[in-house]
């Protein structure tokens, strides 16, 4: 029997098998499913899962006040401060590959970085300008929080944490200022740390300092500088403060700050 003469049999109505695209197949693999817990379809469930299923995003609540997400309310300044901190972390670690914090090498390492390292100048510029920008965003963040009255109960404590973060930001920038080890760095830090001479009781030029036995080589400025003037020990001290101690404390306080934002009821919004 030829093909044409075959009696036509209506096939049972079965749904036409949908041809799966490669992407869909990929999404069904064990590897994919082990990594991603939900798909991207725009449903309330997925919007929720996008936040709580992601360790970075889950710092946020699932829902926020409508008015609080507006740029004109928060100016994004707190978030940008943190973002700039991350930029500083990344560029800073990269800079550490090329920089040695000793009086013999520091300056020549800067020259090396600027003239020989591929993209070294860009790296250094990014680090410096992010640092300046972070100071500005932190100040603006403080100003915004004041202007919206967001330090009021129940957020009094978090405002205090914020003030510590403000201080740490400026101190981080100050310690970093010395590291290029050029005239600008050395004298700016000399001017800044000279203030410590005048600390009441603890500085050798401060009120009642000499009476308590403070000398240039044993007062609080000496402890800060590791010497009687800004020198090689200061460079090492400021390097360790700048790269390890202060970022560590900053991260601790940032953690508390973010956690308290959540615990105190989220971004304070227009009621």
């Amino acid at each position, binding site marked *: 029997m030829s093909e044409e003469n075959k009696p036509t049999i209506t096939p049972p109505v079965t749904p036409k098998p949908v041809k799966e695209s490669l992407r869909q197949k990929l999404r069904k693999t064990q590897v994919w499913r082990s990594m991603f817990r939900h798909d991207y379809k725009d449903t309330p469930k997925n919007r929720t899962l996008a936040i709580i299923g992601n360790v970075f995003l889950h710092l946020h609540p699932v829902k*926020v006040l409508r008015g609080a997400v507006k740029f004109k309310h928060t100016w994004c300044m707190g978030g940008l401060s943190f973002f700039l901190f991350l930029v500083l972390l990344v560029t800073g670690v990269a800079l550490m590959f090329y920089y040695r914090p000793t009086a013999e090498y520091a300056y020549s390492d800067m020259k090396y970085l600027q003239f020989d390292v591929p993209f070294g100048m860009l790296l*250094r510029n990014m680090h410096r300008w992010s640092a300046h*920008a972070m100071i500005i965003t932190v100040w603006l963040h403080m100003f915004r929080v004041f202007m919206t009255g967001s330090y009021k109960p129940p957020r009094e404590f978090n405002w*205090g944490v914020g003030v510590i973060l403000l201080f740490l930001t400026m101190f981080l*920038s100050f310690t970093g200022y010395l590291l290029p080890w050029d005239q600008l760095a050395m004298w700016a830090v000399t*001017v800044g740390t000279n203030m410590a001479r005048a600390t009441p009781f603890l500085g050798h030029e401060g009120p*009642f300092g000499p009476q308590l036995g403070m000398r240039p080589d044993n007062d609080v400025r000496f402890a800060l500088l590791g010497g009687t003037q800004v020198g090689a020990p200061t460079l090492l001290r400021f390097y360790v403060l700048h790269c390890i101690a202060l970022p560590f404390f900053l991260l601790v306080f940032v953690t508390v700050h973010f956690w308290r934002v959540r615990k105190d009821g989220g971004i304070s919004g227009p009621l």
Partner: protein
Amino acid sequence: MNNFLKIISQPDNIPIVIMLFLLAFFLGLALWQGILNDRSRVKPQGPRKEADKVFTFPYLVRSEFLSALVVTLVLFVWSLWIDAPLEEPANPAKTPNPSKAPWYFLGLQEMLVYFDPWIAGVVLPSLIIVGLMAIPYMDRNPLGNGYYTWKERKWAIMIFCFGFFFLWVAMITVGTFFRGPGWNFFMLGQEWDPHKIVALTNVNLSDLFHIRSQGLAMLFGVGVIGAYYSLAMISFLILKLKKSQFLKDMGIPRFFVFMFFFLTMMALPIKMVLRYTLNVKYILVTPWFNV
């Protein structure tokens, strides 16, 4: 004019110029929103409704991502365009004139014109930190929590903005752009002449009253400072007599803490006025410290 352009285009000064514009913009934005809110606020507000909330994903994450993107772009352009400064190698034997602290501390350095280092460099910075942290505990006004307003928090906003804009930002601006060699004052565009001669005409407050004996002068200085801080007591008594609601809300200890911070903050502009009108150097001179 050339000098003006030279100073504002110093790589490290560019952020200050940008900041001044940003501050003006955001001050305007905050006050404008405050006034709009004052005009249109529907009161009283009920508890926050779930319906007033939106999903963080995408509404918040989207703005965060976009602002991070824009800032990254700005940083790249800024960094490709302007190089970070690198001067000669550090040389402890060669002091530049003027020697300036990093720009964000220039407000403190500028205060050195008016106060000795132990006040301007140590006591006042510490009090700024403590005072800022104390703000939420001193401000008892329950209104204006979480939204911009002007009418409901006039005094708080005025005091804070006075401190922030005049005693911090303006001082930084003066320290950066108007202070040249010898920390002398130069107008914008004026050449920074390292040989500028300024007559030292400052006298102590006691000298203005012809008090010549050291002991009496000390007593006089203590008296003036005591009188200044007793303004706290006087205003307390006045408010008490007037049965002021403000005082009742504050409570006695909180009121005095507030007055201490407030008077200490105002000491700076007062000292500036005394300097520029009467050439006053010190209020109190002792063998151990001067104020």
